């Protein structure tokens, strides 16, 4: 038998290169999983395209959107909801990551991650980055198809300026999903997430209709929409797609990302988190 254990470990820490290797490995694994799960990839694309091709086309005939920032002219309904659909992809992707973490916890895969010697906050942040990167890929694939439907930004630079907005919103929604994965004990409970989180967040936002119209007809509903973090993800993407910055949305998105990520790190901390009260995901 040939010995492969030829050297013992050095005594101290990891180098920045090793931290980068861990990040790269986690992103690589998430990407591979996504590619292998073709059904997930296709459904992630079909969902917004159904909204664009059927729902928006139907309403396009009866609805137009008046001139509101960032638009400088009247826009058709399918143009209006495109940023909302980009955010929807991110929302579903974030929740899919949450589902995946619950699944990993149930099957034991999560332990591979959690017994890594890297700090747990770093591992969770890497996982968050990986999920956001996968979400960004999905959005650009959607935008490619939408381009042939006549949906495009004012200039090609819009595709570039929307990238950081997509990434940040992906981080925010992914970190929210991470918090939820710590709260969900069993995979079966995930249907509740669909009913009580994804749909309310999507519908009570500016994704499908401008909030000034909601404000006129139902101020309390408008208030809920303004309290919904998803609204700010939509608006950040909407403005960025037209090479503009919505500062309020940027601040809210960053703030929510930090808060959700901190909650997730706390939840996965073995000393303080919810996992220990829930059996730690192990039996």
């Amino acid at each position, binding site marked *: 038998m040939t010995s*492969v254990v030829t050297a013992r470990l050095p005594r101290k820490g990891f180098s920045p290169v090793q931290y980068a290797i861990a990040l790269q490995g986690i992103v690589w*694994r998430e990407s591979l999983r996504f590619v292998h799960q073709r059904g997930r990839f296709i459904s992630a694309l079909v969902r917004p395209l159904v909204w664009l091709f059927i729902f928006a086309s139907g309403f396009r005939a009866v609805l137009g959107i008046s001139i509101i920032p960032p638009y400088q002219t009247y826009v058709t309904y399918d143009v209006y909801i495109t940023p909302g659909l980009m955010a929807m992809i991110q929302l579903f992707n974030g929740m899919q990551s949450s589902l995946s973490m619950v699944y990993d916890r149930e099957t034991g895969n999560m*332990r591979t991650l*959690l017994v890594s010697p890297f700090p747990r906050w770093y591992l969770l942040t890497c996982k968050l980055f990986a999920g956001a990167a996968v979400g960004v890929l999905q959005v650009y694939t959607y935008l490619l198809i939408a381009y042939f439907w006549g949906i495009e930004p004012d200039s090609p630079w819009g595709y570039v300026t929307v990238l950081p907005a997509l990434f940040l919103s992906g981080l925010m929604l992914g970190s929210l999903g991470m918090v939820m994965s710590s709260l969900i004990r069993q995979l079966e409970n995930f249907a509740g997430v669909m009913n009580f989180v994804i749909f309310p967040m999507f519908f009570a936002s500016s994704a499908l209709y401008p909030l000034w119209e909601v404000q006129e007809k139902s101020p309390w509903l408008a208030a809920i929409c303004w309290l919904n973090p998803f609204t700010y993800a939509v608006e950040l993407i909407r403005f960025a797609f037209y090479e503009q910055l919505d500062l309020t949305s940027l601040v809210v998105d960053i703030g929510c990302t930090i808060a959700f990520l901190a909650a997730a790190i706390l939840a996965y901390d073995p000393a303080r988190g919810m996992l*220990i009260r829930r059996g730690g995901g192990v039996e």
Partner: protein
Amino acid sequence: MTLDERVTREKDVLRTAALEVAGVSHFYGKRKALDNVSFVVEPGSFTVLLGLNGAGKSTLFSLITHLYATRSGKIWIFGYEIGRQTREALRRLGVVFQPRTLDLELTVMQNLIYHAALHGIGPREAKRRAGAVLARAGLAERAGDRVRNLSGGLIRRVEIARAFLHRPELLLLDEATVGLDVKARADIIAQVRALVASEGIGVLWTTHLIDEIAKTDSVVILHEGKVREKGLATEILARTGAPDMAAAFVKVTGAHMHTEANP
């Protein structure tokens, strides 16, 4: 640095056991799962943690691997306390959990590269090491197979190979042979024993199957959350006056133990 801190530091430096569990207790709500558990795994030794299902073995495993925080008592891995020096402790640990933890969607090689990345090992070095550990486990030809297509025994052997990838100094295996047929069980036990002999690493092997114990092993008998007996198998037999470990287990705990024939 206070005197107490200096004494603690000195103790840390002097502590050479591969694993030291000292006075560990753990509760689930009001139920006590572990009660003042203490034992040591020496470097290069094969230690069996023996207990029935529900004895507290998996809870102890979760504490050693820091999936749970140790709230009462201390755990050191090569002198590094798992709660305070988690990174250094976990770096020295190779773990095979009771549930399968390979990603079924990925190939064997992809799983190993992912594991290596989680220990800061880059893809090139990971491939080299993975090739070596797979060859040693007789799995070189399965490197490109999707894990979903492997049998339970092969998956377990891949997990053991994976646990060696980052060159641990202590290997933990939690019920590694559960659900496997007789040949697969024998292969895996032989694989681990051979690795202990060749690499000189410490092993903590938890099981509820008494026939997995060899006479030269150290044994810790855990029952209802308490350590009832510990020492070399031969010492336990001498102390209890039992003809074999099954009888010793009954004497010590009052419960009947599982064997391969009667799991």
